[in-house]
């Protein structure tokens, strides 16, 4: 397997793939059956696997306040597109066809069911903030802000309107935030730190009930997307939303969504395609065939499909981001409550072998929840000692903890081939140190329900560690009240550590807080064992450009363009 760096583009091979495809069909028969049971992209499997989706945190400037200038300067993807546009290569009347395995259940923010709807709704709405391709939070509708310990003051941009002509102003922002806070929806808890909202001129003043600097990350995600208040009572908002983004919705169906460019958009000159079709194609094999036949322009593929994509002459983009494969241990199990046992399990996992065996080396072994280069990544190499594959040490740790003969635990996984493969490997590797794993593979929603109710002693799956905010992920898996911590584990000092993160007024402070949490979790024998960081794979045709896999694990089509021919 050739090494491909972040967002490197490669052109490979001729289209002489018949024999390979025929052989691949045999394997695909099995995969197809799995796909019909709800198989998804790695990223989207987080949905069905439900381990939780999150988004990146910002890397960022050292300023406490941000300005609109940051926006223009930081958005390198937009710059690339603009350069291409200047060169006169771009077909501005083109229709871009993007393929994914997932269909959003709704385009109305409060009703959006999963974080992977981001790609769908991001075309229609502008958010209060947004992330650039480096994962940094930069201005959007909030053109600047000021963070204090008990307030977050947003300056709202002047002179813009929603698709229906309603002006975007402080009152509109207040109405949107109050709609989310008061909704019976999953986003309400993301805005829980907001005690009350006031407006003054073009300013929105959020009075916080607790420090919540990471709200700026939340505002760059779905909860921060602004809709026209005049549309709130519309009955068709689920399929016909009214935002202020670069596109409006022409058609919604269970097969996908079709968008048209909105000529009233403030940055319409950088909206480089006339329309976008997002196609939902659940079956992996069908999707890759659609790319090879040229019927699809750009979209996600699986690591296991790299060979087929290469042979099919497709361009490949790969990138790691804040999404990890994890093995979570529930500490209401007596054995797993012991830090030595948790360390033993971590040392029993052959991360390199898993990466090579299952992913062709494209799942970077690590024990940290964020990839290298991400704010909060612990550069001290000694931390990685926790990832060392050492069965002898693992057996010794088990003996020290009083389990020389091992014990038995249950382990749940989404019933998707990728994760059942992991399940089998973990089962075999833990057997080497005397731990018997009772493997349980459950269909997506059942899996989520069972792990939430604490029915598994341990469970595995993908986890996005920075969406909707870094603080949210740490609370979810390391706070006793966390939604993915049914065993009630409490990371020593978690409340203080979260307070430190939410009180950070500079990116450096924020990164330091995350580093402290990572180290604290490893020193206590992490109950959420990070196994490896999988590369996200996208494929595209020769005439498509501007697509990047951002560190934030939120896939953005706004900057994608097509060239003539």
């Amino acid at each position, binding site marked *: 397997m050739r090494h491909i760096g972040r967002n490197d583009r490669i052109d490979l091979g001729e289209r002489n793939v018949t024999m390979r495809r025929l052989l691949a069909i045999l394997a695909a*028969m099995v995969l197809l059956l799995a796909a*019909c049971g709800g198989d998804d992209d790695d990223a989207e499997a987080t949905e069905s696997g439900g381990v939780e989706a999150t988004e990146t945190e910002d890397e960022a400037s050292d300023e406490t306040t941000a300005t609109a200038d940051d926006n223009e300067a930081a958005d390198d993807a937009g710059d690339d597109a603009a350069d291409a546009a200047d060169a006169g290569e771009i077909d501005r009347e083109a229709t871009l066809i993007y393929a994914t395995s997932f269909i959003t259940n709704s385009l109305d923010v409060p009703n959006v069911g999963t974080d992977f709807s981001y790609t769908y709704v991001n075309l229609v709405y502008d958010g209060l903030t947004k992330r650039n391709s480096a994962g940094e939070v930069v201005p959007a509708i909030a053109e600047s802000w000021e963070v204090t310990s008990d307030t977050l003051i947003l300056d709202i941009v002047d002179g813009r309107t929603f698709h229906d002509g309603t002006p975007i102003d402080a009152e509109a922002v207040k109405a949107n935030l109050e709609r989310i806070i008061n909704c*019976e929806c999953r986003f309400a808890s993301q805005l829980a730190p907001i005690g009350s909202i006031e407006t003054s001129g073009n300013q929105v003043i959020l009075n916080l009930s607790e420090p919540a600097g990471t709200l700026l990350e939340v505002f760059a995600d779905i909860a921060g997307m602004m809709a026209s208040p005049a549309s709130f009572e519309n009955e068709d908002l689920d399929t016909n939303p009214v935002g202020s983004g670069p596109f409006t919705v022409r058609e919604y169906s*269970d097969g996908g969504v079709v968008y048209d460019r909105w000529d009233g958009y403030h940055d319409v000159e950088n909206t480089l395609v006339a329309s976008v079709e997002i196609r939902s194609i659940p079956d992996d094999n069908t999707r890759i065939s659609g790319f090879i*036949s040229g019927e699809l322009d750009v979209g996600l593929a699986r690591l296991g499909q790299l060979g087929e994509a290469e042979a099919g002459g497709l361009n490949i983009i790969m990138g790691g981001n804040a999404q990890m494969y994890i093995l979570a241990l529930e500490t209401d199990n007596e054995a797993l409550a012991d830090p030595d046992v948790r360390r033993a399990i971590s040392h029993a996992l052959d991360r390199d072998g898993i990466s090579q065996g299952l992913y062709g080396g494209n799942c970077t072994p690590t024990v940290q929840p964020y990839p290298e280069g991400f704010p909060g990544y612990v550069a001290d190499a000694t931390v990685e000692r926790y990832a060392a594959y050492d069965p002898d040490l693992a057996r010794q740790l088990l003996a020290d903890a009083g389990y020389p003969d091992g014990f038995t635990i249950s382990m749940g996984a989404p019933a998707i081939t990728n994760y059942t493969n992991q399940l089998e490997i973990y089962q075999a590797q833990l057997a080497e140190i005397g731990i018997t794993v009772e493997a349980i593979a459950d269909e997506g929603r059942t899996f989520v329900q069972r792990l939430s109710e604490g029915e598994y002693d341990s469970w595995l799956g993908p986890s996005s560690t920075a969406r909707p905010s870094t603080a949210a992920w740490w609370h979810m898996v390391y706070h006793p009240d966390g*939604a993915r911590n049914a065993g009630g584990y409490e990371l020593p000092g978690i409340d203080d550590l979260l307070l430190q993160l939410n009180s950070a007024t500079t990116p450096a402070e924020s990164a330091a807080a995350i580093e402290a949490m990572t180290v604290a979790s490893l020193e206590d024998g992490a109950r959420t064992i990070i196994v490896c960081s999988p590369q996200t794979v996208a494929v595209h045709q020769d005439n498509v450009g501007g697509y990047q896999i951002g560190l934030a694990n939120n896939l953005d089509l706004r900057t994608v363009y097509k060239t003539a021919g």
Partner: protein
Amino acid sequence: MSSRLLVRRLGGSVLVVFLASILVALMVHLVPGDAASAVAGENASPEQIQSTRERLGLDEPIWVQYFSWATDALRGDFGQSLITNRPVIEMVRQVLPATLSITLAASVIAVVIGVTLGGLAGLRRGVTDRVTSLGASLGIAMPSFWVGMLLVTFFALEFDLFPVLDYTPLTEDPVGWLHHITLPALALGLGMSAEVARQTRGGVVDVMAQPYIRTARAKGAPGGRLFARHVVRNAAIPVVTVLGLQIGRLLGGVIIIEQVFAINGLGTMAVRAVADRDFPVIQAYVLLTTVIVVAINLLVDLSYGWINPRVRSEE
């Protein structure tokens, strides 16, 4: 067909649909644990669960729940999707044409290929018979999605003759419609044609051995007329029977075929609904397919009397 027989058959069909509708209406109670909790989702608060219970009428007596659901269903109102909040009937209307197109086209392919090859094999025997029988065995053994993948590999990817994905409505573009449904319909219809060919061949062989055929031949009846007048009708009953049975299999097979060709049809809708536990959609799907299968089988039953008057007299 006597009116008594017609009433009896209709009554039986209505009874089957009625019994199926009871199961369909109450299927929400079959999930483990509290149905309202399952529908409301994993993170629902007690208030949301109670609200869901009231919204779905799960706090009413079972018979009230059924009556309410059935009267709404008779009006075409299957409620709203729990996931998309869209009216279920609107979702069904959106996807039904694609599924019906594929299944009808597959049926036509199955009849044309199956009856032709089966008829030839039964009449000519020898090499034609052996080749057809071998082909039929292969056709039955190969799963439709496997055939679909082969068709995609050769006719879409290698020779670029047909598209891999999608569906074009007949009303929008008849040529595009034909272009898009050819491969899915072939993938679905070939297996069925093998079954039809086998039944046709068996029926023709049986009929050809009957004394009245020998008599007709002895009287000098020409081959074409003999086949059209005496063989086809008498051999048709097993063929029609197997066609009726195969329609049910087609509706199952189309689920996979829609995945292979990325067609947003009834099957795709059902797969998503099951994964999402979207009960109103599942209920509509199951009831709709039940009605279709029961209606097809009713037609098959009624056709026996038209095909062969002896059946009427035996009834």
